[in-house]
């Protein structure tokens, strides 16, 4: 059969139209979605889980002056201590309540509440701003929601520190080993090096072995609760569903996963 120019163009046009319609038809049939979801679910060890934390402040405040959670974290992760605030490295730390939730009217927050020390840590956001800006993917979100740090890959550009609205990240301006007692470091966890950003990793290394974060384990008041938000039967999920909780700066859309009970 001889194909003339006009006929060729007609066939090519119909073929192009068909190709253009393909994604639309697939979307209508829902095939793309059905194919993607089991793949997402099968990713990694912590698939279909969503780790989160509840901080029960009245329980925490029942033991004034306690810093067990900070001590346990610092010991587990070799977090250095520096007197100079500019060099400070923070994974878990305390701030006065009034500065943790500054949007609450100070006239309505009683003076006593405003000054109470409130534990802070990385919020392991559902929509983490730090991950979006990291140029080397040294920080990324695991399928179980943990916003992880790969210290090997961090180039120290500090974009993530600018992006994080919670100040959860610290930069090693000096060699962190200068602020550590090298006789007492935990050899199972590395120290960091100068020029690297670090933050709470929700004890990913302990969770992967079936444990709970060190701060949760250390808290005698049981003011810190760790669990799977996606599991309808978990204690954490039941508390988040039944109690009134606050998250920090919800208006930013980062969807923090550390819930505070006041």
């Amino acid at each position, binding site marked *: 059969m001889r194909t003339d120019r006009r006929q060729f163009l007609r066939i090519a046009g119909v073929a192009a139209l068909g190709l253009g319609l393909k994604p639309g038809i697939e979307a209508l049939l829902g095939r793309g979605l059905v194919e993607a979801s089991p793949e997402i679910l099968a990713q*990694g*060890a*912590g698939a279909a889980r969503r780790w989160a934390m509840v901080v029960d402040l009245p329980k925490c405040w029942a033991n004034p002056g306690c810093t067990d959670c900070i001590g346990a974290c610092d010991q587990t992760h070799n977090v250095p201590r520096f007197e100079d605030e500019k060099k400070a490295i923070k994974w878990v730390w305390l701030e006065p309540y009034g500065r943790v939730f500054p949007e609450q009217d100070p006239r309505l927050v009683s003076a006593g509440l405003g000054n109470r020390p409130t534990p802070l840590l990385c919020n392991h956001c559902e929509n983490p701003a730090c991950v979006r800006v990291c140029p080397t993917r040294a920080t*990324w979100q*695991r399928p179980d929601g943990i916003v*992880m740090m*790969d*210290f*090997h890959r961090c180039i120290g550009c500090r974009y993530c520190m600018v992006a994080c609205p919670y100040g959860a990240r610290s930069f090693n301006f000096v060699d962190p080993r200068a602020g550590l007692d*090298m*006789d007492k*470091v935990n*050899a*199972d966890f*590395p*120290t*960091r*090096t100068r020029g690297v950003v670090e933050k709470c990793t929700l004890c*990913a290394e302990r969770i*992967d*072995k079936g444990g709970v974060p060190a701060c949760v384990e250390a808290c005698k008041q049981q003011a810190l609760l760790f669990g799977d938000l996606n599991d309808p039967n978990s204690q954490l999920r039941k508390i988040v569903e039944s109690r009134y909780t606050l998250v920090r700066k919800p208006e930013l859309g980062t969807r923090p996963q550390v819930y505070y009970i006041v």
Partner: protein
Amino acid sequence: MHDGSKIVPGLILFLGILFAPFWYNAGTGQAAARPDIVKPTQEKQCVESTEFMKANHMQLLIQWREEVVRNGDRTYVATDGKSYEKSLTGSCLKCHSNKAEFCDRCHDYAHVQPNCWNCHTAPKESKA
């Protein structure tokens, strides 16, 4: 050749200085000297064969690092079917407890400077 009386002795002197280290090592027998590493006594078999580990331990460690940190995959199944924890301080240094006389001696000989120890602590360092 103009100035041959200067160029030829100069060339000989230059080549003499250039090759002096090679002749020195050949003369003293140091060229054949290998670093004297201290092997662990309690365990005979590493995670893979000695030849493989000699040639590829650096790639294996990088692979472990990527899989543990980025994928949370912490168990290594060796060629012989045995399972090990992918951990420098938890697995390697449990047997190779003498970092100074195992890792460092060979690395110094080969003049490689791995930056593992900028962050990871060897058991000796943490005790001493």
